[in-house]
């Protein structure tokens, strides 16, 4: 039956090509748009997701990870004295002004960490020595940001907010949502680059004592004055949610993806419906001869599934090609197995929904109509 459905569908190759093109454009739009969204969201919580902290403590009312308010040294002691806290690390994240060799300016997000920090440190090292960032004026940068920073190797010397900055380590894949490159350094140098006073920071990273749940500890720490506390997964979700909802980026990507699905629905629906209309007498004859509606509907749905499979394979290929092109433009398109799997299911559902009009037409087809010329 699959073979017969395929033959009926492929008989008019031009129409089938249009249907396949409709589905593949739809699939590509869904994969690329949601892949881009996931890439941006990954960047939005990149630092948090790679930390080993159980709980993040922030200034009360801080909504955005990238623009968190300052907290002072006294907060660290309050956190340390809270039951269930095993260890803390100070961390600073704030913007600095990076000066290129040609005098051009570029905003950077400076990440300051304590010497010997284990809860957050540069990862995915591809060159240099990350331990050296704890020397004054030494930084680590990401190779994907070379073009923005105007450097291409370890040892490059520049200025951040008027202070010396020498690249001593390179990473790959530590990218920010804000498009300002991350620069890792020690806490004191970070304060100098961002004009933060010596007793200020933006985060206290907390490791819970064994047996203490991060949720319980976060709840306990949130009761401290002028502080909020979140478990790492919650912190990550908040960072993503902020950028997704406040900037409209989520709505933008999903609207485009939804438009892709609508395009697919309309194109496939019209092709399948036209095909059904063209074969109405044949389907009517089969019904007259005793074929049940279910058997004929199955032939139409098989055609929908074949359109979906062909369109998905072509659209998937287009999405992979687009990802390669976008990677060159420093954009991350995350084609996760979950996304690919969900898109495959969505494509089949979309094509089956598109076949609905055809199915209704066949269900309502009066077999006696074949006697009426």
């Amino acid at each position, binding site marked *: *039956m699959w073979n*017969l459905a395929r*033959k*009926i569908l*492929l*008989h008019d190759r031009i129409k089938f090509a249009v249907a396949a093109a409709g589905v593949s454009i739809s699939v590509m739009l869904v994969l690329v748009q949601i892949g881009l969204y996931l890439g941006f969201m990954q960047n939005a919580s990149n630092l948090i997701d790679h930390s080993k902290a159980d709980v993040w403590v922030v200034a009360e009312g801080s909504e955005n990870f990238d623009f968190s308010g300052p907290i002072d040294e006294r907060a660290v002691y309050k956190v340390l004295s809270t039951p269930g806290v095993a260890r803390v690390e100070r961390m600073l994240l704030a913007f600095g002004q990076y000066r290129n060799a040609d005098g051009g300016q570029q905003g950077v997000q400076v990440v300051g960490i304590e010497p010997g920090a284990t809860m957050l440190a540069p990862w995915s090292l591809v060159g240099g020595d990350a331990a050296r960032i704890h020397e004054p004026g030494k930084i680590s940068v990401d190779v994907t940001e070379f073009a923005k920073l105007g450097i291409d190797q370890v040892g490059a010397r520049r200025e951040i907010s008027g202070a010396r900055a020498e690249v001593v380590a390179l990473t790959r894949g530590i990218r920010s949502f804000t498009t300002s490159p991350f620069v890792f350094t020690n806490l004191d140098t970070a304060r100098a680059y961002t004009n933060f006073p010596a007793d200020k920071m933006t985060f206290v990273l907390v490791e819970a004592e064994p047996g203490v749940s991060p949720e319980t500890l976060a709840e306990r720490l949130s009761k401290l004055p002028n502080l909020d506390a979140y478990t790492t997964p919650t912190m990550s979700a908040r960072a993503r949610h902020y950028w997704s909802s406040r900037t409209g980026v989520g709505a933008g990507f999903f609207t485009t993806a939804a438009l892709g699905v609508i395009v697919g629905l309309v194109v496939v629906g019209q092709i399948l419906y036209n095909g059904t209309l063209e*074969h109405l*007498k*044949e389907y*009517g*004859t*089969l*019904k*007259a*001869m*005793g*074929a*049940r509606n279910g*058997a*004929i509907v199955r032939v139409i749905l098989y055609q929908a599934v074949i359109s979906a499979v062909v369109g998905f394979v072509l659209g998937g290929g287009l999405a992979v090609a687009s990802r390669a092109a976008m990677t060159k433009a420093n954009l991350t398109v995350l084609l996760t197995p979950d996304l690919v799997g969900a898109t495959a299911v969505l494509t089949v559902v979309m094509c089956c929904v598109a076949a609905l009009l055809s199915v209704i037409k066949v269900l309502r087809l*009066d*077999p*006696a109509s*074949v*006697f*009426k*010329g």
Partner: protein
Amino acid sequence: MSNPTATPVASLAAISKTYGEGEMAVTALSDADLSIYPGEILLIEGPSGSGKTTLISILGLLLKPTTGAVFVDGRDVTALHERELPAIRARHFGFVFQGFNLFPALTALENVALAIKMKHPRAKDAELQSRRLLAAVGLETRMHHLPANLSGGQKQRVAIARALGGDPTIILGDEPTAALDTKTALGVMELLRGLATEQGRAVVVVTHDPRLERFADRVARVEDGRVVAVETMRHAA
């Protein structure tokens, strides 16, 4: 040949069919009686609009009569639910149309096999059956041809093979020779004659063409919604 003492494979008893209601009501058929016997060819003749299509549609269980009863293989099927009718049609009826109604994308073999699979989803030997049926209608060398590459007569033979899928006892034809030239039309009728005589199937053909009467055992004449006469042909008597 028809045998009035044989049990009819299907019959219509006092059938009427009215479309619409009240002042808009149109009576397409009234008080029609007709029995179909195994091994006979029955022609239904009459002018356009006389009720032939309504008659054959009710006989083929595609249309419910307003009054009267329809019997198939001795069983009153008039009151059966719509859901039960496809199975009875699949078991007892094959249909042949003027326009062939073959899927243009499928070969002769595939068209016949598809019908068998649709009628009997559990049929394991649909392709083998189709080959046998196509051979029986003289198309053993044309099985893998698309309808576009077959002549009108060959297409109608494919349609007849398709109608024979599932081994029905009654073949209903709606002007099956109207689109064919005389020679081809007579060839198709000879084929139907053989199905009746050699295989004992009942063949009912709606036609305007009096040349087909020589193949018929009986001719039912329909005028103004009434079966005005059923004549036994002399050569069949």
